[in-house]
């Protein structure tokens, strides 16, 4: 970044964060007033669901460093919980929400408690295997999941005082629902990240042995990150199933998991705005380039490689998280010295 760039960056820092957030939120809420195009809203809703997923993956991978290549399995757990409850037991959309979150979370807890004894790339391979097993199981357990044909489920509806407002296939209500869901997710994740848990997760990611020496119960905290991450995937799955009105195993394959990882890498591990912007960008760009549909995997692969080679901290990279321990990172050290100075002055 050149000098002017830094100046601009410093200037933006003067604007209160909260004001910026409220402003962005207002724009997003007002967007359908200006753009009523169903297709645009549809794309934004899918991007929003991906944003929730990336935020969930961010808790596992971004904060705690647990690379998960089978994240789609937990997404599937949420979606299929709603589908099965709806089709077999007639539960409504809203009533199934806690069940979806709990089942995906429990799924994560159960799998995590076996798998988290592994680290790094071995953990990644085990999660990959788990994701594939889940998909094959969904494909083959026809009596429960409808097999490859999937399940057709009810769209949500709202009961207003005088009439029943069915969401149907109109994209507008889903837009607001997704926006609300993202808001809730962002609040949860940002509160978590600045809590004791969040700090402990980052410590574990940076150096697990050192974290354990500082009295962090690494096993329990890793499991917690895994469980919360999967519960958020369940939340997204619930929303996805309600919006699509249909679930089938092919929505939850390996490519989905990798796409989410690519989004996380693109936005920057550990960054909440990064996760959202990346989900938006990497959903919208392939849509705009629809004629080049068959280059999709190429696109995601290139994003992953280029980011890792040239900007491993991602677009919005939490610079601190990656460079804190590198002595050559002059800027961080300066910032830290300044902060220390201020603390001493007070």
């Amino acid at each position: 970044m050149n000098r002017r760039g830094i100046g601009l960056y410093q200037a933006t820092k003067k604007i209160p964060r909260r004001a910026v957030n409220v402003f962005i939120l207002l724009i997003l809420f007002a967007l359908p007033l200006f753009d009523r195009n169903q297709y645009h809203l549809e794309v934004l809703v899918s991007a929003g669901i991906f944003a929730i997923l990336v935020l969930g993956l961010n808790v596992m991978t971004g904060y705690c460093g647990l690379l998960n290549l089978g994240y789609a399995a937990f997404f599937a757990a949420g979606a299929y919980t709603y589908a099965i409850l709806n089709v077999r037991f007639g539960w409504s959309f809203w009533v199934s929400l806690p069940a979806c979150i709990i089942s995906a979370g429990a799924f994560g807890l159960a799998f995590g408690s076996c798998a988290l004894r592994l680290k790094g790339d071995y953990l990644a391979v085990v999660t990959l295997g788990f994701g594939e097993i889940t998909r094959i199981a969904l494909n083959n357990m026809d009596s429960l999941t409808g097999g490859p044909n999937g399940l057709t489920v009810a769209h949500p509806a709202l009961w207003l005082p005088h009439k029943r407002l069915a969401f149907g296939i109109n994209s507008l209500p889903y837009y607001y629902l997704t926006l609300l869901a993202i808001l809730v997710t962002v609040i949860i994740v940002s509160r978590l990240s600045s809590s004791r848990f969040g700090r402990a997760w980052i410590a574990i990611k940076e150096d697990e042995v050192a974290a354990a020496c500082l009295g962090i119960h690494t096993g329990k905290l890793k499991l917690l990150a895994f469980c919360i991450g999967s519960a958020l995937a369940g939340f997204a799955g619930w929303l996805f199933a309600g919006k699509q009105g249909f679930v089938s195993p092919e929505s939850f394959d390996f490519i989905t998991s990798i796409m989410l990882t690519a989004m996380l890498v693109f936005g920057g591990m550990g960054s909440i705005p990064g996760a959202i912007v990346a989900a938006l960008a990497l959903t919208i760009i392939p849509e705009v380039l629809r004629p080049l549909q068959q280059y999709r995997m190429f696109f995601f692969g290139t994003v992953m490689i280029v980011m890792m080679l040239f900007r491993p901290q991602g677009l919005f990279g939490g610079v601190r998280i990656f460079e804190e321990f590198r002595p050559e990172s002059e800027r961080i050290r300066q910032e830290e010295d300044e902060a220390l100075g201020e603390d001493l002055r007070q």
Partner: protein
Amino acid sequence: MSPLETFIQQLINGLVIGMIYALIALGYTMVYGIIQLINFAHGEIFITGAFIGLAVFGALPGALGLGNLWALVLMFALAMAGCGLLGVLIERVAYRPLRKSPRLACLITAIGVSFILQNVLMLIWGPVDKSFPVFFKHSALTFGAFRVTFMQSFIVISSLVMMLVLHFFIRRTMLGKALRAASEDMTAARLMGINVERIISVCFLIGSALGGAGGLMYGMYYNTITFHDGYLAGIKAFTAAVLGGIGNVPGAMLGGVALGMMEGLGAGYLSSEWKNVFAFLILIILLLRWPSGILGKFRHE
């Protein structure tokens, strides 16, 4: 056929596919042994071998008027050379700049490379199944009730030959000695004057060439290939590498054969719908319970 004969026939089928897994597993294990990277792109390199072979068969022997045997030799030579160079190229472009980065960064890059390769294969050869020419038509050796086709014996014998050559190379040559030294301790090897970067390139070259040969055999054995076949075969071969003890070359051969036989028996006696689940389940259980495998020693991070 009596139950025993069926059992033995399944074992033979398993042995053949196991040999192919072993060839791919060698690439995983050699690369992991030296830079501790799960080379996710290896599955795609493997299937690229099959596609190169197919292209060579389509283009050259007809024009040169070669017989079947020479066509076969040419296919193997070009597939192995092409895959070897592809492996070296990938290492140079995607992995070498990340040598000092965290290991997960390398893994993510490897997945990216695998995605790109799959997409390129699809763009070149299309998304549909490609059928392979049939070599050794209908010729089989029968031992009593068992049938071993010429194709099967060809696969077993030629992979055995390749593995023996590799074994000889690693045990008896100077370069092989350097390779063993680098996988034992990279820094120490560098201090002894070994050009470690070159050794890593050699590793990728040999591993990818063997993978390419395996891919060609896979195509000839199943007679049909698609661009995403490499992914599943790659995972299975990785399982084989872990089963034999990752980083251990004889282990990869043993693991491949063992996995192939287990899978053959599983598919034969249980259910073929869940066939792919076995490989993944074996992988998960192995990594959780027995990460050192048959011959390896597990290195804690």
